[in-house]
């Protein structure tokens, strides 16, 4: 039972982790709490459904949907956030802006698709595998593998490539990054593109797993993923994944010991406890400040 619940928690955590990676990415590069990420996530699944509705076939629809969501990320940046950066306005006004954006996306989705829960096509034939006496579905394994691959790609991109170095430079000081010859606008747009893409990939996988989608689907999951990203340490991608798993598993254990209705509170309680012990998250480093 406990083991089963841990596995259930792990797969739940995988969903958080998938979304959290995108959060952490944008967050890590732009120091921006992107509250629109949950809405962008919902947009991803809806975009795919839209293309399926126009008989594009599943795979092309997914590709198109994912790209469109990436483009949405870029659009959000260009239209709403770029002007704020140009004015060097305080970070908190960007936060409010992203909240405004999520209102807009969510309500437009509702107007276009209706607010009800709708079926999303099954992506894979879901088979059950038994490991150590616990059940795992193939879909859960696929989600796990995808997140790890996504993580590996993004980590390599950021740590091992020139554009990644540029991204980190932009994070620390946009003006000076420009003086190094870095096209900062492009780098930031690219980051948002990646953020959008990763949100869309997450939403396709998760919607495919639960076979369900609706405009507000990103809200609670988004908050949890945000918590996971912070739990792991802001901007630390592998931290985001571990954070997601920690939250998922603790929800599983909470449901076993106390009942499903305590799930959410336990996730946040764990978050608070971890942060009290490690103020910069599990893998985050305390910001250095040379006096």
């Amino acid at each position, binding site marked *: 039972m406990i083991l089963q619940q841990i596995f259930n928690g792990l797969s739940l955590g995988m969903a958080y982790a998938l979304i959290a990676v995108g959060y952490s990415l944008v967050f890590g590069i732009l120091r921006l709490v992107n509250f629109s990420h949950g809405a962008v996530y919902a947009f991803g699944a809806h975009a795919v459904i839209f293309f399926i509705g126009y008989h594009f076939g599943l795979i092309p629809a997914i590709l198109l949907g994912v790209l469109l969501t990436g483009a949405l990320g870029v659009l959000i940046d260009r239209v*709403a956030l770029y002007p704020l950066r140009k004015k060097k306005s305080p970070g908190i006004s960007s936060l409010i802006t992203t909240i405004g954006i999520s209102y807009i996306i969510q309500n437009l989705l509702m107007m276009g698709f209706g607010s009800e829960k709708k079926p999303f096509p099954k992506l894979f034939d879901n088979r059950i595998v038994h490991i150590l006496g616990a059940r795992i579905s193939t879909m859960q394994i696929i989600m796990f593998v995808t997140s790890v691959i996504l993580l590996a790609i993004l980590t390599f991109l950021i740590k091992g490539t020139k554009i990644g170095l540029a991204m980190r430079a932009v994070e620390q000081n946009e003006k000076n990054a420009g003086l190094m010859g870095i096209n900062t606008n492009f780098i930031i747009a690219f980051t948002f593109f990646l953020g959008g893409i990763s949100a869309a990939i997450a939403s396709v996988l998760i919607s495919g797993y639960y076979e369900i989608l609706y405009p507000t689907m990103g809200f609670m999951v988004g908050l949890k993923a945000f918590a996971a990203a912070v739990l792991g340490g802001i901007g630390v991608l592998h931290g985001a994944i571990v954070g997601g798993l920690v939250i998922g598993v603790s929800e599983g254990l909470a449901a076993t010991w106390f009942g499903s209705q305590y799930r959410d509170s336990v996730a946040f309680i764990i978050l608070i406890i971890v942060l009290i012990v490690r103020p910069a998250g599990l893998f985050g480093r305390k910001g250095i400040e040379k006096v």
Partner: protein
Amino acid sequence: MEKIRTGINRLTEGFSYLETNVYKYRIILYAGGLSLSMLLPVFGFSQYMTRIFIMIGIYTMLALGLNILTGYTGLVSLGHGGFFAIGAYTTAILMLRFQMNFLIAVMIAMVFTGICGLLLGLPTLRLTGTYLSIVTLGFGEIVRMVIMNFDTVTNGTLGIRNIPRPSFFGFELTLANHGLFYLMLVLLILVTYVCIGIQNSNMGRTLRAIKADELAAVMMGIRSSRYKVGAFVVSAVLTGLAGGYYASLVSYIDHNSFTFDVSIMILSIVILGGMGTIRGMFLGAAILVAFPEVARPLMEWRFVVYGLVLILMMRFKPQGLLGWRSRLPYKIPVLKRSQTYREEKEANRRGR
């Protein structure tokens, strides 16, 4: 776009110009504004309108409370809905279960909310920035979960209803007799007074220094931890007061009255109005509370437009609508016949 920008800029510049020039008449202005709001009900507004005014008042109080934490101290809370809920539930439970008078119940609720503020503030002292924000967000959600699951006290998801209206010496305050409106006004004046008191004393100055540069503040001998926790407590207490009043106003509360959206709304008011200002909270609350009402005819576009409003305001006035720096000279009290006073006069005579 350009027009909107210049429009908004001109408007706020106008305001700040007014500030410098109308300063002399401020007493008259305050008195005028106050008596105008006292007279509001006499103009025969419907209960619907009265209600909106009251909601603006409540959100102004909430924003003033959060402003202490976010505006002055720079700690961004995404969970003030939690304190709001604690204030409301405590008041409601005390009034219903123990037949307490509104005032006593609210005061106990304020103390209790303050303790919760302390309990949240203390362990999170080492956290900064986003880490702190996510913890407050978690706090807000945990409060909701406690409300939902702690049935014996909070009545769970069923919520608490039939919360009595405040009454004094057997006189019940309602919307119809405008009692609730005046009570709101009194509470709002009280809260504003407290905020002005904090702003203009050592506490306010210290909080702003912590916001500007905590390390430098510590190097000036400021015990920043104490002040940060203090800000948490004061902020929670004021929010608790608003919660208590709210419970008694709507007479039905449940966990859905205090969602994340409420926390966001309070924060939006603070930022839209202008962090660290008192005037801004009034304007911010008026705009964001009234907007959904005014925009009712837009139907389903309403919240799309609401989102747009937030974005545009931030884009053109990121420091908030009334968030300018005061251009008035700093007030320096003068002691007659003191040496400095004489010196100053002399300097003036010589013409600098």
